[in-house]
């Protein structure tokens, strides 16, 4: 996980009973990308973060936050 960045993508996705593949289709990326974002290996671009937030019906801040917040 990049230093200082927390993400709650997995919780939000699971809360909407979506698989990684389903969420990937909704935002137009591969399942691998969703997996790497959830595992904190990859920090998505602003565009993808906005698409993820829109697909999950929440704000970007609900998905990603700075750890000291």
């Amino acid at each position, binding site marked *: 996980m990049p230093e200082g960045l927390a993400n709650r993508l997995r919780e939000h996705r699971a809360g909407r009973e979506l698989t*990684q593949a389903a969420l990937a289709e909704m935002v137009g*990326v*591969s399942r691998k*990308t969703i997996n*790497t*974002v959830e*595992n904190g290996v990859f920090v998505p671009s602003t565009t993808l973060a906005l698409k993820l937030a829109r697909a999950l019906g929440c704000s970007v801040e609900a998905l990603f936050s700075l750890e000291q917040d």
Partner: protein
Amino acid sequence: MTTTDYEKAERLGRKRAQMLPLFAILFLTQQASYFSGPNVDSGRPVDHIRIAAWLAMSIVLLLVLATGGGWFRSREVRALMNDEATQAHRNDAFRFAFFAAMIACVGLYVLGLFEPVGGRDVIHVVMSCGIGAALVRFGMLERRAYRDA
């Protein structure tokens, strides 16, 4: 994009991740045979073919690294195979390859202080180190990304 596109991209992406380290091994093995055998100056046709094969393979692998491959697939499948996580992995692989090539240059420079090193040999080593390092790094990052996916 259809579900089939996503499935295809997933399958091809996994296959690519598995194949990259194998390509690296094959490529570097070919490199070893270049230095262990007689060089192109020997004039034997077989050596010219060997060098040409290495050059052709280098160019193909460079193009795979630069584009992400999947050349004969639809635009949608290619886009999924080369989405932003993959592009980040490729960028990281290129950065890694640059350092590997520079380290090879430093090594060859030092070697050149003690014995003459031919220009063709230098190109061979630098290209092989760069391409080999990029293949290994890209493959490693892709395999890690697919783990648990």
